[in-house]
């Protein structure tokens, strides 16, 4: 992990393709094995939202001080339009870590593979990740990457800036924030408080379409598969039934419904 102080920053952003968390809960299905969410027509694949915030954080640093942004994604299968989105937003390169073995990793395995890929990339100053993935909501892999690489880790940032060889970030707290800093190379996880990610431009989409990702398998990374054995095993995955039997208040028109709602809540002594 050589750090280049002489050139612009090398930023790596880790992103994950996930089932759309905005899809209605009723569209989700559990697959037959009872251990994962099944592909379902009502649930499309998207880039994890917090990862888009991380891409935006990287682009803001690049806008301010220059830099090169490499996007890193891990999985067994990818939708090109999903994983290429960061390129269309303005990132420079895409590295896909693709292997059948990567289909069933826990946070430990995920962090291990990503840290090996980072070692192979070699020269980087800053690693940015979303604060958590909206599928398993683990918020663990970024901490693991930093642990395995022995680099500083700052979580849940709403602002990330670099100043010489130092990263300065605002870490979201309940009722405020904390300003922290660390020597680079360092890892920072980004939260939605950073602000909305930019839209891809037409030109960006066309450039992204032409770019060929670099693809590395487990063998390319020299990963011993025994090290990827799950430390956390899924016994059961289920969709809780939520139906509170909503009492729908229906008046003559919307205004009347509003009035009747207030009366009904008073009846229940709720107001």
């Amino acid at each position, binding site marked *: 992990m050589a750090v280049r102080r002489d050139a612009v920053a090398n930023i790596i952003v880790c992103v994950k393709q996930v089932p759309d968390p905005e899809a209605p*809960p009723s569209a989700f299905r559990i697959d037959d094995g009872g251990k994962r969410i099944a592909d379902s027509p009502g649930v499309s694949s998207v880039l994890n939202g917090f990862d888009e915030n991380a891409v935006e954080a990287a682009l803001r640093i690049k806008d301010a001080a220059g830099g090169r942004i490499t996007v890193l994604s891990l999985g067994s299968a990818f939708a090109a339009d999903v994983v290429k989105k960061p390129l269309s937003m303005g990132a420079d390169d895409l590295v896909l870590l693709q292997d059948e073995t990567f289909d069933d990793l826990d946070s430990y395995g995920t962090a291990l593979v990503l840290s090996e890929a980072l070692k192979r990339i070699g020269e980087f100053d800053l690693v940015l990740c979303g604060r958590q993935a909206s599928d398993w909501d683990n918020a663990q892999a970024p901490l693991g990457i930093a642990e395995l690489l022995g680099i500083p880790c*700052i*979580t849940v940032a709403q602002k990330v800036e670099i100043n010489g060889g130092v990263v300065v970030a605002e870490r979201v*707290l*309940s009722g405020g924030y904390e300003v922290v800093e660390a020597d680079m190379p360092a890892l920072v996880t980004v939260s939605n408080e950073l602000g909305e990610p930019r839209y891809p431009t037409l030109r960006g989409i066309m450039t992204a379409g032409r770019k060929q990702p670099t693809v590395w398998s487990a063998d390319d990374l020299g990963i011993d598969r025994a090290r990827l054995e799950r*430390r956390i095993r899924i016994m059961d995955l289920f969709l809780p039934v939520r139906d509170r039997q909503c009492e729908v208040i229906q008046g003559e028109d919307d205004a009347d419904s509003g009035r009747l*709602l207030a009366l*009904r*809540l008073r009846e229940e002594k709720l107001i």
Partner: protein
Amino acid sequence: MVDVLAFGEHAGGKIAPITADLIAAARGVGGRVAVVLMGGDLTGLEAQTAPLGVDKVYTVQHPLLAGESVDMLVSALEQVCRRVQPRVLLLGKTAIGRDVGPCVAFRLGVGAAQDSVAVEAGGQTGRIVATRPVYGGTAMAKVTFGSSNPQVVIMRPGAVERGSVPGAGEGVAEEAEAIEVELDESIRKVRHVETVRKESERMRLDGASVVVSGGRGLRGPEPFAMLEELAGLLGGAVGASRAACDAGWVDHSYQIGLTGATIRPDLYVTVGISGASQHMAGCSGAKRIVAINKDADANIFKEASFGVVGDWSKVLPSFMEAVRDLVRS
């Protein structure tokens, strides 16, 4: 011998509520329960753990543990785990625990179950089974651990009913032990610069008995003035969905949901909120939910007790007028 070790948190010389949650969860697992307290100065804290019902209190006092550096806490807790060898390590999903727990697990080469709402010793093996919401709460997973210890579980605050666990809250004869840890300044990789508190006149969301929230369906910041007025009439606080915060209509301190505030009001009134799982994760503790939304198929109507399917801009003014009359009478 300690079976379950709880990472106790404290602030301002007082044991934090999460510590009682963890001890209750630990009692549910069974065996000998210990709590570990870490800090620069633990004077008076040890005595406060007696009523919580632990078998043993470990104290780790070191000048470098003042100031809640995650790097220092991880190193200290790793050293404590190697010494005490608990089968189970419990932490709270707090700003500290959610980072310290996974880092200690990675360092010890074991797994961690993040954001768990229930924990039990499972079946014949006695390995821990943790239940955790995933996919933003759309699904629930039961997970268990490989053969290595400790089994690290990070518990969602407020998930454990403290009174429901036998033994929890009972004064148990306890022993105390101070553990020496080796720490030095080189362990600190992330440096604290300053903490900035946003002063707010607003009523706090946590603890409010009535909360009124707006979402994407409001289509702009202006309607929040009406929600403020409604909250004022009901003696409640105003919140928002993440979409409304991300759009810049209100500050992110309004955000309710998985990564925002968690609320447990008696009455939760939502306006223009579809009820995505990530939002519901922050308000599932609400006793009654009221929904005003124009989409009859919106998920919020599956979670609400009372609802109006209609245009909020017509429903809300007459609702408020009626509320105004009712609260005056």
